[in-house]
């Protein structure tokens, strides 16, 4: 019962993420998701009374990284780039909400045709993880700001982790730690990149990062001249 409540809250967080424009709010929502991800395996283990110290340690590390460190890095990048809102997303907020509903429907329909009952203990875990992954991908595609795209990647990765928890897949300690470390380093580098993009272009709209490519009218030599002027 307790785990079901966690999954439902997780789903609600996904839907809220898709409809909020304030970046700080979004960062807090993702932090909350990180906290829930830390709690989920613990809740399972306590209910089945097979809690091991290594599991508790892993949950602690995961909560520290996902609910404390990552949000801090992101909000610092946000302050340094001086953006607060995603004002004109590529897909508006009402469209996003509709897309969210479509994703929910799609995930539940898809999961009905899978033979899951022999693998997972919670009927909700797989649909929720699929919805979370789709939410993350949607955020990456439908938002302009580089920071929101970084958030989208985190949500996507959260979805994958929820899938692993729901299917009770146990990786070795080193692998779990490595995944967390990778995500942490990725967000760190993305934060630095956002800062540089903001300084170079005075915006962090990734849809305007479109100078490279084979179809652009700009010749390579023009670009180097511009660089020299700067």
């Amino acid at each position, binding site marked *: 019962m307790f785990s079901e409540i966690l999954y439902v809250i997780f789903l609600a967080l996904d839907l809220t993420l898709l409809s909020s424009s304030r970046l700080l709010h979004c960062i807090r929502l993702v932090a909350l998701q990180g906290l829930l991800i830390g709690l989920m395996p613990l809740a399972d283990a306590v209910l089945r009374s097979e809690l091991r110290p290594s599991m508790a340690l892993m949950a602690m590390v995961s909560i520290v990284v996902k609910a404390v460190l990552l949000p801090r890095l992101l909000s610092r990048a946000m302050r340094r780039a001086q953006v607060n809102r995603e004002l004109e997303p590529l897909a508006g907020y009402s469209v996003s909400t509709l897309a969210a509903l479509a994703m929910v429907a799609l995930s539940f329909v898809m999961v009905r045709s899978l033979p899951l009952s022999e*693998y997972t203990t919670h009927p909700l875990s797989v649909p929720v993880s699929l919805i979370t*992954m789709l939410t993350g*991908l949607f955020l*990456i595609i439908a938002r302009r700001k*580089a920071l929101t*795209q970084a958030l989208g*990647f985190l949500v*996507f*990765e959260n979805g*994958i982790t929820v*899938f*692993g928890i729901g*299917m009770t*897949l*146990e*990786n*070795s300690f*080193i*692998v779990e730690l*490595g*995944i967390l*470390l*990778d995500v942490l*380093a*990725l967000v760190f*580098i*993305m934060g630095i*990149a956002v800062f*540089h*993009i903001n300084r*170079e*272009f005075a915006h962090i709209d*990734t849809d305007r*990062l*479109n*100078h*490279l*490519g*084979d179809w652009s009218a700009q*010749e*390579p*030599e023009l*670009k*180097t001249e511009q*660089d*020299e002027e*700067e």
Partner: protein
Amino acid sequence: MMTLALILAPLAAALLAWRDTRGRLAVRLWLPLAAVLHLAGSLWLLASRGDVAAARLDDLLGLDMTSAILLTVTSTLFLCVSLHTQLWLPAEQAKARRDGHGGLLQSHRVFVPCLLLFLSTMTLVISARNFGLLWVAVEATTLASAPLILFHRSGSSLEAMWKYLLICSVGIGLALFGTMLMAVSATGLEHGGLSLSLLAEHRAQLHPGWFKAAFILILVGYGTKMGLAPFHTWLPDAHSEAPGVVSALLSGALLNCSLLGIWRFLSICPDGLLPFCRQLLVALGLLSLAVAVFFIIHQPDYKRMLAYSSVEHMGLAAILCGIGRWDVALLHLCGHSLIKMSLFLLAGNVLLAYGTRAIRSIGGIFGRLPRTALLWLVGVLLICGTPPSPLFVSEWLLLTSAPLWLTCLVFLMLFGVFAGMSLACLKLCLGEDGEARPAAEDVCGAERAAAVPAAALGVALLGGAYLTWCLLSGQPIPGVN
């Protein structure tokens, strides 16, 4: 044990280079020292036929023969790059100081440690014997190499770096989902887990439905990193914006590691699914070839042309995996790495001299950079598979062992690539002078830095000549069954 040392040694050197604030020792000492030690270690492992016999079944690290060969290639490439850096970096810095934007170059304290970290993470990819660890390592290579693209801090390199980070991370994220699905397909096993040796032993018992889904996601994920079309979009941008030494590593070493990831999954594929997985690989390989031909013909930018040529060769390697000739694919990867590295280093020298990547505004480099031009011609001929190139042998084996329709298609596209590349190469080497006016010091520096590519191309030529001789005289070709 030795494998672990090979991962940790570059890490230690990275730390030392980062601590070195004045930046003299970082480039002159720590970078080549780590490269030499790494090469010595991997040669030792290659000579002792890998590290895997001693490893227990559920070990995380270990080297079989395939990975020992790839490790040696990576290591050799890194040594070449670190030697080339000794010649290229001072010239580049002098140029930046003269032009008055010396502050725009990345500092030693980021550049050298990131290079060393990149080597360490690639070693981890090659030696990982656990699919979870493999994923961690592949993502870590993205993270270590992304800052390197930002060597010239311009807007376009920022754009390339952001695309690289985001597209590759999302792609590799899909691969993580695929890895999880594969763990689900293995839940029926007694031990479970993601260990390569265990899964290879019990591969007949993997659940085929889950494995199919897993393989598709893995192919998309690691295929993104490997530059298979249609997931290659980050590759031309990143490879053309990065400095020559970094593009050489990205193209010559990193793409191999990603293909190794895909091959690891293919090697535990249950027999019933093997035709499906192979067809998928052949289809993506053909698409990559087609995309590469399309963009190489009339390509105005010589570094982008090289990047698309990497897409082409990864497509060929994927086709070779798809028709079940992994041994030839390995040969192809080794040849491609060596030649493509030399070409990217030479391209870096041309960029250093002329300051532009547009073929039209350079015109002909033969008058000013005769050595570079000659090497460039040789390199382009070798990369197109002109005999006696090692790629000629592997492409010949591909054409003779594939079904007829595949042979015809591949042959047609190889011809297209050859036409496009040789046209661009002739224009670049022998054309009329364009509007770019290089400074005499830069030309001098670029000509001086031609030593390493010359040596690498010489080795490729000799090796290729030996392989071609083996092919013609009917001797067994080394490494090919």
